[in-house]
Protein backbone atom coordinates (compact mmCIF):
# COMPACT_ATOMS: atom_id res chain seq x y z
CA UNK A 1 0.00 0.00 0.00
CA UNK A 2 2.69 2.38 1.11
CA UNK A 3 4.73 1.47 -1.91
CA UNK A 4 2.37 3.15 -4.34
CA UNK A 5 3.14 6.52 -2.85
CA UNK A 6 6.68 6.22 -4.15
CA UNK A 7 6.98 8.24 -7.33
CA UNK A 8 9.03 6.52 -9.97
CA UNK A 9 9.73 9.29 -12.43
CA UNK A 10 11.58 12.52 -12.18
CA UNK A 11 8.66 14.91 -12.22
CA UNK A 12 9.62 16.83 -9.16
CA UNK A 13 11.73 19.93 -9.81
CA UNK A 14 14.68 20.86 -7.65
CA UNK A 15 13.12 21.68 -4.26
CA UNK A 16 13.21 25.40 -3.67
CA UNK A 17 14.61 24.81 -0.20
CA UNK A 18 17.70 23.32 -1.82
CA UNK A 19 20.91 24.68 -0.51
CA UNK A 20 24.01 24.18 -2.57
CA UNK A 21 27.19 26.23 -2.75
CA UNK A 22 27.39 28.84 -5.50
CA UNK A 23 29.97 26.91 -7.47
CA UNK A 24 27.57 23.97 -7.74
CA UNK A 25 24.47 25.99 -8.50
CA UNK A 26 24.86 25.78 -12.25
CA UNK A 27 25.37 22.00 -12.28
CA UNK A 28 23.01 19.13 -11.67
CA UNK A 29 23.04 18.12 -8.04
CA UNK A 30 24.64 14.77 -7.27
CA UNK A 31 21.85 13.80 -4.90
CA UNK A 32 18.26 14.84 -4.48
CA UNK A 33 15.96 13.33 -1.89
CA UNK A 34 12.30 14.11 -2.33
CA UNK A 35 9.82 13.40 0.48
CA UNK A 36 11.94 10.50 1.57
CA UNK A 37 10.52 8.51 4.46
CA UNK A 38 10.55 5.15 6.18
CA UNK A 39 8.56 3.44 8.90
CA UNK A 40 10.63 1.20 11.15
CA UNK A 41 8.97 -0.92 13.81
CA UNK A 42 5.79 1.12 13.59
CA UNK A 43 7.45 4.52 14.01
CA UNK A 44 8.25 6.95 11.25
CA UNK A 45 12.01 7.00 11.69
CA UNK A 46 12.41 9.50 8.86
CA UNK A 47 9.67 11.54 7.22
CA UNK A 48 9.45 14.22 4.52
CA UNK A 49 13.18 14.30 4.05
CA UNK A 50 13.97 16.80 1.30
CA UNK A 51 17.64 17.26 0.77
CA UNK A 52 19.91 18.25 -2.10
CA UNK A 53 23.65 17.86 -2.35
CA UNK A 54 25.70 19.73 -4.94
CA UNK A 55 28.35 18.17 -7.13
CA UNK A 56 31.32 19.19 -5.00
CA UNK A 57 29.68 20.11 -1.74
CA UNK A 58 30.62 19.05 1.76
CA UNK A 59 27.34 18.82 3.64
CA UNK A 60 26.67 17.97 7.25
CA UNK A 61 23.80 16.01 8.72
CA UNK A 62 23.43 16.62 12.44
CA UNK A 63 20.90 16.07 15.15
CA UNK A 64 20.47 14.56 18.60
CA UNK A 65 20.84 10.81 19.21
CA UNK A 66 18.12 8.77 17.58
CA UNK A 67 17.14 11.61 15.25
CA UNK A 68 17.33 9.33 12.20
CA UNK A 69 20.67 10.36 10.69
CA UNK A 70 22.03 6.85 10.20
CA UNK A 71 18.62 5.81 8.92
CA UNK A 72 18.94 8.41 6.16
CA UNK A 73 22.26 6.87 5.11
CA UNK A 74 20.70 3.42 5.20
CA UNK A 75 17.93 4.68 2.94
CA UNK A 76 20.35 6.26 0.49
CA UNK A 77 22.39 3.05 0.29
CA UNK A 78 19.29 0.83 0.25
CA UNK A 79 20.14 -1.06 3.40
CA UNK A 80 16.49 -0.17 4.02
CA UNK A 81 14.10 0.33 1.13
CA UNK A 82 12.29 3.65 1.58
CA UNK A 83 8.55 3.42 2.16
CA UNK A 84 7.93 6.83 0.59
CA UNK A 85 9.74 9.29 -1.58
CA UNK A 86 12.33 9.36 -4.30
CA UNK A 87 16.09 9.37 -4.36
CA UNK A 88 17.73 10.82 -7.44
CA UNK A 89 21.41 10.05 -7.80
CA UNK A 90 23.10 11.94 -10.62
CA UNK A 91 19.59 12.60 -11.87
CA UNK A 92 18.76 8.90 -11.94
CA UNK A 93 16.00 7.40 -9.81
CA UNK A 94 17.45 4.68 -7.59
CA UNK A 95 14.06 3.06 -7.13
CA UNK A 96 14.37 -0.74 -7.18
CA UNK A 97 18.14 -0.73 -6.83
CA UNK A 98 19.91 -2.69 -4.10
CA UNK A 99 22.96 -1.72 -2.06
CA UNK A 100 25.39 -3.10 -4.62
CA UNK A 101 23.77 -1.30 -7.53
CA UNK A 102 23.62 1.99 -5.64
CA UNK A 103 27.35 1.69 -5.02
CA UNK A 104 27.97 1.07 -8.70
CA UNK A 105 25.85 4.14 -9.41
CA UNK A 106 28.15 6.25 -7.25
CA UNK A 107 27.42 6.17 -3.50
CA UNK A 108 30.04 4.89 -1.08
CA UNK A 109 29.77 5.03 2.68
CA UNK A 110 31.31 4.30 6.04
CA UNK A 111 29.47 2.86 9.02
CA UNK A 112 28.86 4.23 12.49
CA UNK A 113 29.73 0.87 14.04
CA UNK A 114 32.82 0.10 11.99
CA UNK A 115 32.33 -2.67 9.46
CA UNK A 116 35.74 -3.68 8.16
CA UNK A 117 36.73 -7.04 6.75
CA UNK A 118 38.53 -7.87 9.96
CA UNK A 119 40.44 -10.91 8.81
CA UNK A 120 41.76 -9.29 5.64
CA UNK A 121 44.84 -7.14 5.48
CA UNK A 122 44.52 -3.37 5.22
CA UNK A 123 45.50 -3.47 1.54
CA UNK A 124 43.04 -6.28 0.82
CA UNK A 125 40.23 -4.30 2.41
CA UNK A 126 40.92 -1.54 -0.10
CA UNK A 127 41.49 -3.90 -3.03
CA UNK A 128 38.22 -5.72 -2.30
CA UNK A 129 36.51 -2.43 -3.06
CA UNK A 130 38.23 -2.27 -6.47
CA UNK A 131 36.69 -5.54 -7.61
CA UNK A 132 34.35 -3.88 -10.06
CA UNK A 133 37.27 -2.20 -11.82
CA UNK A 134 39.08 -5.47 -12.30
CA UNK A 135 38.38 -7.52 -15.37
CA UNK A 136 40.39 -10.76 -15.17
CA UNK A 137 38.36 -13.95 -14.89
CA UNK A 138 38.68 -17.02 -12.73
CA UNK A 139 40.91 -18.91 -15.14
CA UNK A 140 43.36 -16.01 -15.13
CA UNK A 141 43.36 -16.10 -11.35
CA UNK A 142 43.91 -19.86 -11.11
CA UNK A 143 46.65 -19.90 -13.75
CA UNK A 144 48.14 -16.58 -12.60
CA UNK A 145 48.31 -15.29 -16.14
CA UNK A 146 49.95 -11.97 -17.09
CA UNK A 147 46.50 -10.33 -17.11
CA UNK A 148 46.07 -11.35 -13.48
CA UNK A 149 49.50 -10.07 -12.52
CA UNK A 150 49.07 -6.80 -14.36
CA UNK A 151 45.75 -5.97 -12.76
CA UNK A 152 46.80 -7.11 -9.30
CA UNK A 153 49.94 -4.98 -9.41
CA UNK A 154 47.95 -1.98 -10.62
CA UNK A 155 45.36 -2.52 -7.90
CA UNK A 156 48.04 -2.79 -5.23
CA UNK A 157 49.67 0.43 -6.40
CA UNK A 158 46.39 2.23 -6.35
CA UNK A 159 45.54 0.85 -2.91
CA UNK A 160 48.85 2.13 -1.53
CA UNK A 161 48.27 5.51 -3.11
CA UNK A 162 44.83 5.80 -1.56
CA UNK A 163 46.17 4.63 1.79
CA UNK A 164 48.89 7.27 1.64
CA UNK A 165 46.24 10.01 1.81
CA UNK A 166 45.71 8.89 5.39
CA UNK A 167 49.35 8.00 5.88
CA UNK A 168 48.56 4.30 6.15
CA UNK A 169 50.69 2.88 3.34
CA UNK A 170 53.21 1.39 5.77
CA UNK A 171 50.65 -0.81 7.49
CA UNK A 172 49.18 -2.21 4.27
CA UNK A 173 49.92 -5.82 5.21
CA UNK A 174 48.50 -5.67 8.72
CA UNK A 175 45.30 -7.45 9.66
CA UNK A 176 42.54 -4.84 9.60
CA UNK A 177 40.91 -6.13 12.79
CA UNK A 178 44.10 -5.53 14.75
CA UNK A 179 44.31 -1.82 13.94
CA UNK A 180 43.64 0.82 16.56
CA UNK A 181 40.22 2.42 16.48
CA UNK A 182 41.13 5.63 14.69
CA UNK A 183 42.99 3.79 11.96
CA UNK A 184 39.99 1.51 11.41
CA UNK A 185 37.79 4.56 10.83
CA UNK A 186 40.30 5.98 8.36
CA UNK A 187 40.57 2.64 6.58
CA UNK A 188 36.81 2.59 6.10
CA UNK A 189 37.04 5.94 4.33
CA UNK A 190 39.84 4.68 2.07
CA UNK A 191 37.84 1.56 1.26
CA UNK A 192 34.83 3.68 0.33
CA UNK A 193 36.99 5.92 -1.87
CA UNK A 194 38.37 2.91 -3.71
CA UNK A 195 34.97 2.38 -5.34
CA UNK A 196 35.28 5.72 -7.21
CA UNK A 197 32.16 7.30 -5.69
CA UNK A 198 30.62 10.59 -6.74
CA UNK A 199 29.05 10.89 -3.29
CA UNK A 200 30.79 9.83 -0.10
CA UNK A 201 28.71 9.31 3.06
CA UNK A 202 30.63 9.40 6.34
CA UNK A 203 28.79 8.27 9.46
CA UNK A 204 30.47 9.85 12.49
CA UNK A 205 34.02 9.66 11.10
CA UNK A 206 35.49 11.33 14.19
CA UNK A 207 33.69 9.22 16.79
CA UNK A 208 36.10 8.00 19.43
CA UNK A 209 38.97 10.14 18.18
CA UNK A 210 40.94 12.55 20.34
CA UNK A 211 41.14 16.25 19.36
CA UNK A 212 44.45 15.94 17.52
CA UNK A 213 43.22 12.90 15.57
CA UNK A 214 40.04 14.82 14.74
CA UNK A 215 42.06 17.73 13.45
CA UNK A 216 44.08 15.37 11.26
CA UNK A 217 40.91 13.75 10.02
CA UNK A 218 39.52 17.15 9.11
CA UNK A 219 42.59 17.87 6.99
CA UNK A 220 42.30 14.48 5.34
CA UNK A 221 38.65 15.00 4.48
CA UNK A 222 39.50 18.34 2.92
CA UNK A 223 42.33 16.68 1.01
CA UNK A 224 40.04 13.94 -0.29
CA UNK A 225 37.51 16.56 -1.31
CA UNK A 226 40.11 18.52 -3.21
CA UNK A 227 41.76 15.52 -4.86
CA UNK A 228 38.65 13.74 -6.07
CA UNK A 229 36.26 16.70 -6.42
CA UNK A 230 33.38 14.66 -5.01
CA UNK A 231 30.43 15.45 -2.81
CA UNK A 232 30.67 14.44 0.85
CA UNK A 233 27.89 14.19 3.39
CA UNK A 234 28.94 13.62 6.96
CA UNK A 235 27.08 12.82 10.13
CA UNK A 236 28.95 14.12 13.13
CA UNK A 237 28.43 15.03 16.76
CA UNK A 238 31.69 16.99 16.94
CA UNK A 239 30.37 20.49 16.27
CA UNK A 240 33.77 22.07 15.73
CA UNK A 241 34.42 19.63 12.88
CA UNK A 242 31.00 20.13 11.31
CA UNK A 243 31.06 23.92 11.55
CA UNK A 244 34.57 24.00 10.18
CA UNK A 245 34.31 21.95 7.05
CA UNK A 246 30.65 21.80 6.05
CA UNK A 247 29.28 24.30 3.57
CA UNK A 248 25.68 23.35 4.16
CA UNK A 249 24.14 21.73 7.21
CA UNK A 250 20.87 19.90 7.65
CA UNK A 251 19.53 19.36 11.16
CA UNK A 252 17.33 16.39 11.92
CA UNK A 253 15.18 15.84 15.00
CA UNK A 254 12.74 12.96 15.52
CA UNK A 255 12.99 12.08 11.85
CA UNK A 256 12.12 15.57 10.62
CA UNK A 257 14.32 18.29 9.20
CA UNK A 258 14.13 21.22 11.59
CA UNK A 259 16.67 23.48 9.93
CA UNK A 260 18.84 23.83 6.87
CA UNK A 261 21.48 26.42 6.17
CA UNK A 262 25.06 27.55 6.37
CA UNK A 263 27.02 26.88 9.57
CA UNK A 264 26.36 30.46 10.74
CA UNK A 265 22.60 30.16 10.17
CA UNK A 266 22.48 26.88 12.04
CA UNK A 267 24.43 28.11 15.04
CA UNK A 268 21.96 30.93 15.63
CA UNK A 269 18.80 28.99 14.76
CA UNK A 270 16.46 28.87 17.78
CA UNK A 271 14.87 25.54 16.76
CA UNK A 272 18.28 23.89 16.62
CA UNK A 273 19.34 25.30 19.96
CA UNK A 274 16.06 24.12 21.43
CA UNK A 275 16.51 20.61 20.03
CA UNK A 276 19.99 20.28 21.43
CA UNK A 277 19.40 22.08 24.73
CA UNK A 278 16.04 20.41 25.28
CA UNK A 279 17.69 17.06 24.99
CA UNK A 280 20.49 18.05 27.31
CA UNK A 281 18.01 19.22 29.90
CA UNK A 282 16.25 15.84 29.74
CA UNK A 283 19.52 14.02 30.09
CA UNK A 284 20.31 15.95 33.26
Amino acid sequence: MEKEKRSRTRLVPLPSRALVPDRDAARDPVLECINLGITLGGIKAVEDFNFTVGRTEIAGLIGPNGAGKTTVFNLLTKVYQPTTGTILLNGRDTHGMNTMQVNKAGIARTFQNIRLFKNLSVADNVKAAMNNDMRYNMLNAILRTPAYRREEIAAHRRALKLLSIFDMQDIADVRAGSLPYGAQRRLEIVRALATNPSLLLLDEPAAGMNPSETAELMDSIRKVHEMFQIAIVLIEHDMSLVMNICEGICVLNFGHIIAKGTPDDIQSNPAVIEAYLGRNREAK
Partner: protein
Amino acid sequence: MRRLINLKRVEARRIYLTYFVVIAAYVICQTMSSTKMMSSSMRGMLVPICAYMVMAVSLNLVVGISGELSLGHAGFMSVGAFSGVATAILLQNLLPFAPVRLAIAMISGAVFAALAGFLIGIPVLRLKGDYLAIVTLAFGEIIKSILNNFYLGVDSAGLHFSMLSDTTRLLPGGQLIIRGPMGISRIMKIATFPAGFILVMIALAIVFNLVNSRFGRGFMAIRDDRIAAESIGLDVTKFKLTAFVMSAALAGAAGCLFSLNYSTIVANKFDFNTSILILVFVVLGGQGNMLGSIIAAAALTILPEKLREFSDYRMLLYAVILIMTMLITNNDNIKAFFQNILPGSKAKFQKEESDA
Protein backbone atom coordinates in the same frame (compact mmCIF):
# COMPACT_ATOMS: atom_id res chain seq x y z
CA MET B 1 51.89 0.47 19.76
CA ARG B 2 51.22 -3.23 19.60
CA ARG B 3 53.38 -5.18 17.23
CA LEU B 4 51.36 -5.90 14.12
CA ILE B 5 51.60 -9.11 12.13
CA ASN B 6 52.51 -8.93 8.49
CA LEU B 7 49.65 -10.97 7.05
CA LYS B 8 51.17 -11.25 3.62
CA ARG B 9 54.32 -12.90 4.89
CA VAL B 10 52.41 -15.25 7.21
CA GLU B 11 50.11 -16.19 4.35
CA ALA B 12 52.94 -16.88 1.88
CA ARG B 13 54.78 -18.98 4.41
CA ARG B 14 51.67 -21.03 5.10
CA ILE B 15 51.08 -21.69 1.40
CA TYR B 16 54.66 -22.86 0.76
CA LEU B 17 54.57 -25.01 3.87
CA THR B 18 51.38 -26.69 2.67
CA TYR B 19 52.81 -27.52 -0.75
CA PHE B 20 56.01 -28.72 0.87
CA VAL B 21 54.25 -31.01 3.34
CA VAL B 22 52.12 -32.58 0.60
CA ILE B 23 55.10 -33.16 -1.70
CA ALA B 24 57.23 -34.56 1.11
CA ALA B 25 54.44 -36.88 2.25
CA TYR B 26 53.98 -38.06 -1.32
CA VAL B 27 57.68 -38.79 -1.81
CA ILE B 28 57.89 -40.68 1.48
CA CYS B 29 54.74 -42.73 0.86
CA GLN B 30 55.71 -43.48 -2.71
CA THR B 31 59.16 -44.69 -1.67
CA MET B 32 57.76 -46.77 1.16
CA SER B 33 55.13 -48.32 -1.04
CA SER B 34 57.54 -49.17 -3.87
CA THR B 35 60.16 -50.63 -1.49
CA LYS B 36 57.41 -52.74 0.13
CA MET B 37 57.92 -51.07 3.49
CA MET B 38 54.25 -50.23 3.63
CA SER B 39 51.56 -52.71 4.66
CA SER B 40 49.12 -53.61 1.91
CA SER B 41 46.18 -52.26 3.89
CA MET B 42 47.97 -48.93 4.17
CA ARG B 43 48.78 -48.99 0.47
CA GLY B 44 45.10 -49.50 -0.30
CA MET B 45 44.25 -46.36 1.63
CA LEU B 46 46.55 -44.01 -0.29
CA VAL B 47 44.05 -43.12 -3.01
CA PRO B 48 41.06 -42.71 -0.65
CA ILE B 49 43.19 -40.46 1.55
CA CYS B 50 44.00 -38.27 -1.45
CA ALA B 51 40.31 -38.15 -2.35
CA TYR B 52 39.35 -37.16 1.20
CA MET B 53 42.06 -34.49 1.23
CA VAL B 54 40.55 -32.94 -1.88
CA MET B 55 37.09 -33.20 -0.31
CA ALA B 56 38.34 -31.42 2.81
CA VAL B 57 40.13 -28.68 0.89
CA SER B 58 37.12 -28.07 -1.33
CA LEU B 59 34.68 -27.97 1.57
CA ASN B 60 37.02 -25.58 3.36
CA LEU B 61 36.60 -23.20 0.43
CA VAL B 62 32.88 -23.02 1.24
CA VAL B 63 32.97 -23.28 5.03
CA GLY B 64 36.23 -21.55 5.90
CA ILE B 65 36.74 -19.03 3.10
CA SER B 66 33.19 -18.29 2.03
CA GLY B 67 31.61 -18.73 5.47
CA GLU B 68 28.66 -20.89 4.41
CA LEU B 69 27.73 -24.20 5.98
CA SER B 70 27.30 -27.12 3.58
CA LEU B 71 26.07 -30.44 4.94
CA GLY B 72 25.83 -32.34 1.67
CA HIS B 73 29.34 -32.37 0.32
CA ALA B 74 29.22 -36.16 -0.14
CA GLY B 75 26.35 -35.55 -2.55
CA PHE B 76 28.70 -33.82 -4.97
CA MET B 77 31.20 -36.58 -4.41
CA SER B 78 28.63 -39.13 -5.52
CA VAL B 79 27.55 -37.11 -8.56
CA GLY B 80 31.21 -36.93 -9.58
CA ALA B 81 31.72 -40.60 -8.79
CA PHE B 82 28.84 -41.92 -10.88
CA SER B 83 29.28 -39.57 -13.83
CA GLY B 84 33.06 -39.97 -13.79
CA VAL B 85 33.04 -43.75 -13.57
CA ALA B 86 30.37 -43.99 -16.26
CA THR B 87 32.58 -41.81 -18.47
CA ALA B 88 35.56 -44.04 -17.78
CA ILE B 89 33.58 -47.16 -18.72
CA LEU B 90 32.25 -45.57 -21.91
CA LEU B 91 35.78 -44.58 -22.93
CA GLN B 92 37.29 -47.96 -22.06
CA ASN B 93 37.67 -49.10 -25.68
CA LEU B 94 38.27 -45.69 -27.19
CA LEU B 95 41.10 -44.71 -24.88
CA PRO B 96 43.20 -47.70 -23.88
CA PHE B 97 45.74 -45.46 -22.10
CA ALA B 98 44.47 -45.45 -18.50
CA PRO B 99 45.93 -42.16 -17.18
CA VAL B 100 44.27 -40.14 -19.93
CA ARG B 101 41.00 -41.96 -19.33
CA LEU B 102 41.30 -41.24 -15.63
CA ALA B 103 41.92 -37.54 -16.28
CA ILE B 104 38.93 -37.25 -18.62
CA ALA B 105 36.74 -39.17 -16.17
CA MET B 106 37.70 -36.79 -13.37
CA ILE B 107 36.99 -33.76 -15.54
CA SER B 108 33.62 -35.22 -16.42
CA GLY B 109 32.88 -35.89 -12.74
CA ALA B 110 33.88 -32.32 -11.92
CA VAL B 111 31.65 -30.86 -14.63
CA PHE B 112 28.57 -32.83 -13.56
CA ALA B 113 29.12 -32.02 -9.88
CA ALA B 114 29.61 -28.34 -10.74
CA LEU B 115 26.34 -28.41 -12.63
CA ALA B 116 24.57 -29.90 -9.61
CA GLY B 117 26.18 -27.24 -7.41
CA PHE B 118 25.05 -24.50 -9.75
CA LEU B 119 21.47 -25.76 -9.84
CA ILE B 120 21.05 -25.90 -6.08
CA GLY B 121 23.20 -22.84 -5.42
CA ILE B 122 21.19 -20.50 -7.63
CA PRO B 123 17.98 -20.44 -5.62
CA VAL B 124 19.57 -20.85 -2.19
CA LEU B 125 22.46 -18.41 -2.26
CA ARG B 126 20.17 -15.52 -3.14
CA LEU B 127 18.65 -15.75 0.32
CA LYS B 128 20.16 -14.09 3.34
CA GLY B 129 20.69 -16.51 6.21
CA ASP B 130 21.90 -20.05 6.66
CA TYR B 131 19.59 -21.83 4.28
CA LEU B 132 22.44 -23.54 2.48
CA ALA B 133 22.95 -26.00 5.33
CA ILE B 134 19.37 -27.27 5.15
CA VAL B 135 19.21 -27.40 1.39
CA THR B 136 22.55 -29.18 0.98
CA LEU B 137 21.51 -31.65 3.65
CA ALA B 138 18.38 -32.43 1.64
CA PHE B 139 20.35 -32.48 -1.58
CA GLY B 140 22.71 -35.15 -0.21
CA GLU B 141 19.77 -37.40 0.63
CA ILE B 142 17.88 -36.72 -2.59
CA ILE B 143 20.85 -37.42 -4.83
CA LYS B 144 21.40 -40.67 -2.95
CA SER B 145 17.80 -41.75 -3.60
CA ILE B 146 17.99 -40.72 -7.24
CA LEU B 147 21.20 -42.66 -7.84
CA ASN B 148 19.77 -45.67 -6.01
CA ASN B 149 16.99 -45.75 -8.60
CA PHE B 150 18.92 -44.78 -11.67
CA TYR B 151 19.72 -47.14 -14.54
CA LEU B 152 22.07 -46.23 -17.34
CA GLY B 153 22.99 -48.49 -20.23
CA VAL B 154 24.80 -48.23 -23.52
CA ASP B 155 24.39 -50.20 -26.72
CA SER B 156 25.01 -49.69 -30.40
CA ALA B 157 22.11 -47.22 -30.54
CA GLY B 158 23.62 -44.97 -27.88
CA LEU B 159 22.92 -44.17 -24.23
CA HIS B 160 19.69 -45.20 -22.50
CA PHE B 161 18.55 -44.42 -19.00
CA SER B 162 15.53 -45.06 -16.85
CA MET B 163 14.34 -44.44 -13.32
CA LEU B 164 12.92 -46.77 -10.65
CA SER B 165 13.32 -49.97 -12.67
CA ASP B 166 15.47 -51.08 -15.54
CA THR B 167 13.51 -50.31 -18.69
CA THR B 168 16.49 -49.44 -20.83
CA ARG B 169 15.87 -52.51 -23.10
CA LEU B 170 19.38 -52.65 -24.38
CA LEU B 171 20.14 -54.26 -27.71
CA PRO B 172 22.19 -57.46 -27.66
CA GLY B 173 25.80 -56.62 -26.90
CA GLY B 174 24.71 -53.61 -24.83
CA GLN B 175 26.02 -53.01 -21.35
CA LEU B 176 24.13 -51.80 -18.28
CA ILE B 177 26.53 -49.40 -16.54
CA ILE B 178 24.58 -48.05 -13.56
CA ARG B 179 22.26 -50.62 -12.00
CA GLY B 180 20.15 -48.73 -9.47
CA PRO B 181 20.81 -49.90 -5.91
CA MET B 182 23.59 -52.18 -7.16
CA GLY B 183 25.51 -49.14 -8.31
CA ILE B 184 28.36 -49.67 -10.74
CA SER B 185 30.34 -52.88 -10.59
CA ARG B 186 33.29 -54.42 -12.42
CA ILE B 187 35.07 -51.08 -12.47
CA MET B 188 38.60 -51.11 -13.82
CA LYS B 189 40.66 -49.72 -10.97
CA ILE B 190 42.61 -47.08 -12.83
CA ALA B 191 43.01 -44.60 -9.95
CA THR B 192 46.63 -44.40 -8.83
CA PHE B 193 48.44 -42.73 -5.97
CA PRO B 194 50.39 -40.38 -8.27
CA ALA B 195 47.10 -39.31 -9.86
CA GLY B 196 45.70 -38.70 -6.38
CA PHE B 197 48.73 -36.65 -5.45
CA ILE B 198 48.36 -34.55 -8.61
CA LEU B 199 44.68 -33.94 -7.84
CA VAL B 200 45.54 -32.80 -4.31
CA MET B 201 48.14 -30.41 -5.71
CA ILE B 202 45.69 -29.09 -8.31
CA ALA B 203 43.00 -28.59 -5.68
CA LEU B 204 45.45 -26.71 -3.46
CA ALA B 205 46.68 -24.56 -6.33
CA ILE B 206 43.14 -23.70 -7.38
CA VAL B 207 42.06 -22.81 -3.86
CA PHE B 208 45.21 -20.85 -2.95
CA ASN B 209 45.29 -18.96 -6.23
CA LEU B 210 41.60 -18.14 -6.03
CA VAL B 211 41.95 -16.96 -2.45
CA ASN B 212 44.76 -14.62 -3.48
CA SER B 213 42.79 -12.98 -6.25
CA ARG B 214 39.88 -10.60 -6.48
CA PHE B 215 37.61 -13.64 -6.09
CA GLY B 216 39.11 -14.75 -2.79
CA ARG B 217 39.01 -11.21 -1.46
CA GLY B 218 35.33 -11.13 -2.41
CA PHE B 219 34.59 -14.46 -0.68
CA MET B 220 36.31 -13.41 2.52
CA ALA B 221 34.93 -9.87 2.48
CA ILE B 222 31.39 -11.25 2.26
CA ARG B 223 32.16 -13.74 5.01
CA ASP B 224 33.52 -11.03 7.31
CA ASP B 225 30.76 -8.49 6.72
CA ARG B 226 28.00 -8.93 4.20
CA ILE B 227 26.55 -5.42 4.49
CA ALA B 228 29.93 -3.77 4.07
CA ALA B 229 30.64 -6.04 1.09
CA GLU B 230 27.41 -4.94 -0.58
CA SER B 231 28.20 -1.32 0.19
CA ILE B 232 31.41 -1.53 -1.86
CA GLY B 233 29.57 -3.05 -4.78
CA LEU B 234 30.30 -6.75 -4.40
CA ASP B 235 27.68 -9.07 -5.90
CA VAL B 236 27.15 -11.35 -2.91
CA THR B 237 25.12 -14.02 -4.70
CA LYS B 238 27.60 -14.29 -7.55
CA PHE B 239 30.60 -14.64 -5.27
CA LYS B 240 28.94 -17.22 -3.05
CA LEU B 241 27.83 -19.18 -6.09
CA THR B 242 31.34 -19.08 -7.54
CA ALA B 243 32.89 -20.54 -4.39
CA PHE B 244 30.15 -23.12 -4.05
CA VAL B 245 30.33 -24.34 -7.66
CA MET B 246 34.12 -24.49 -7.59
CA SER B 247 33.95 -26.51 -4.39
CA ALA B 248 31.38 -28.88 -5.94
CA ALA B 249 33.58 -29.36 -9.00
CA LEU B 250 36.59 -30.34 -6.90
CA ALA B 251 34.41 -32.70 -4.87
CA GLY B 252 33.20 -34.27 -8.10
CA ALA B 253 36.75 -34.92 -9.27
CA ALA B 254 37.61 -36.37 -5.87
CA GLY B 255 34.54 -38.62 -5.98
CA CYS B 256 35.59 -39.94 -9.35
CA LEU B 257 39.14 -40.64 -8.18
CA PHE B 258 37.79 -42.34 -5.06
CA SER B 259 35.44 -44.64 -7.01
CA LEU B 260 37.98 -45.66 -9.62
CA ASN B 261 39.96 -47.18 -6.76
CA TYR B 262 37.26 -49.80 -6.09
CA SER B 263 35.68 -52.45 -8.25
CA THR B 264 32.17 -51.58 -7.09
CA ILE B 265 30.50 -48.36 -5.92
CA VAL B 266 27.01 -47.79 -4.56
CA ALA B 267 25.25 -44.52 -3.82
CA ASN B 268 24.85 -45.40 -0.13
CA LYS B 269 28.60 -45.00 0.33
CA PHE B 270 28.15 -41.22 -0.03
CA ASP B 271 25.65 -40.58 2.72
CA PHE B 272 25.14 -38.01 5.43
CA ASN B 273 27.82 -39.63 7.59
CA THR B 274 30.38 -39.04 4.86
CA SER B 275 29.33 -35.39 4.58
CA ILE B 276 29.73 -34.97 8.31
CA LEU B 277 33.08 -36.75 8.29
CA ILE B 278 34.36 -34.26 5.71
CA LEU B 279 32.99 -31.39 7.75
CA VAL B 280 34.87 -32.81 10.74
CA PHE B 281 38.10 -32.68 8.71
CA VAL B 282 37.49 -29.00 8.07
CA VAL B 283 36.52 -28.07 11.61
CA LEU B 284 39.35 -30.08 13.10
CA GLY B 285 41.91 -28.74 10.66
CA GLY B 286 40.74 -25.20 11.16
CA GLN B 287 38.42 -23.13 9.00
CA GLY B 288 40.35 -21.56 6.17
CA ASN B 289 43.40 -23.65 7.04
CA MET B 290 44.11 -25.94 4.08
CA LEU B 291 47.10 -27.68 5.61
CA GLY B 292 45.03 -28.46 8.69
CA SER B 293 42.25 -29.93 6.54
CA ILE B 294 44.72 -32.13 4.71
CA ILE B 295 46.34 -33.44 7.86
CA ALA B 296 42.98 -34.02 9.51
CA ALA B 297 41.72 -35.91 6.45
CA ALA B 298 44.78 -38.17 6.44
CA ALA B 299 44.80 -38.75 10.18
CA LEU B 300 41.10 -39.49 10.49
CA THR B 301 41.17 -41.89 7.55
CA ILE B 302 44.13 -43.84 8.92
CA LEU B 303 43.06 -43.75 12.57
CA PRO B 304 40.05 -46.11 12.41
CA GLU B 305 42.24 -48.67 10.63
CA LYS B 306 45.03 -48.35 13.15
CA LEU B 307 42.55 -48.80 15.96
CA ARG B 308 41.37 -52.10 14.52
CA GLU B 309 43.35 -54.10 17.06
CA PHE B 310 41.12 -52.70 19.79
CA SER B 311 38.22 -54.29 17.89
CA ASP B 312 35.14 -53.58 20.03
CA TYR B 313 36.36 -50.31 21.42
CA ARG B 314 37.53 -49.05 18.08
CA MET B 315 34.80 -46.53 17.37
CA LEU B 316 34.62 -45.52 21.02
CA LEU B 317 38.31 -44.70 21.03
CA TYR B 318 37.92 -42.91 17.73
CA ALA B 319 35.19 -40.73 19.18
CA VAL B 320 37.21 -39.96 22.30
CA ILE B 321 40.27 -39.00 20.28
CA LEU B 322 38.11 -36.83 18.05
CA ILE B 323 36.52 -35.00 20.96
CA MET B 324 39.88 -34.55 22.67
CA THR B 325 41.41 -33.07 19.54
CA MET B 326 38.50 -30.71 19.06
CA LEU B 327 38.79 -29.54 22.63
CA ILE B 328 42.52 -29.07 22.36
CA THR B 329 42.36 -27.14 19.14
CA ASN B 330 39.37 -25.01 20.07
CA ASN B 331 39.39 -24.44 23.81
CA ASP B 332 41.56 -21.55 24.98
CA ASN B 333 42.08 -22.96 28.48
CA ILE B 334 43.22 -26.32 27.23
CA LYS B 335 45.34 -24.62 24.59
CA ALA B 336 47.01 -22.55 27.29
CA PHE B 337 47.56 -25.72 29.32
CA PHE B 338 49.34 -27.43 26.47
CA GLN B 339 51.32 -24.31 25.76
CA ASN B 340 52.58 -24.41 29.31
CA ILE B 341 53.80 -27.96 28.87
CA LEU B 342 55.42 -27.29 25.53
CA PRO B 343 57.71 -24.30 26.04
CA GLY B 344 58.53 -23.88 22.34
CA SER B 345 54.99 -23.19 21.31
CA LYS B 346 54.31 -21.03 24.34
CA ALA B 347 56.32 -18.10 23.10
CA LYS B 348 54.72 -18.31 19.71
CA PHE B 349 51.23 -18.43 21.15
CA GLN B 350 51.78 -15.42 23.34
CA LYS B 351 53.10 -13.44 20.45
CA GLU B 352 50.05 -14.19 18.36
CA GLU B 353 47.85 -13.35 21.29
CA SER B 354 49.30 -9.89 21.70
CA ASP B 355 49.13 -9.30 17.98
CA ALA B 356 45.49 -10.15 17.67
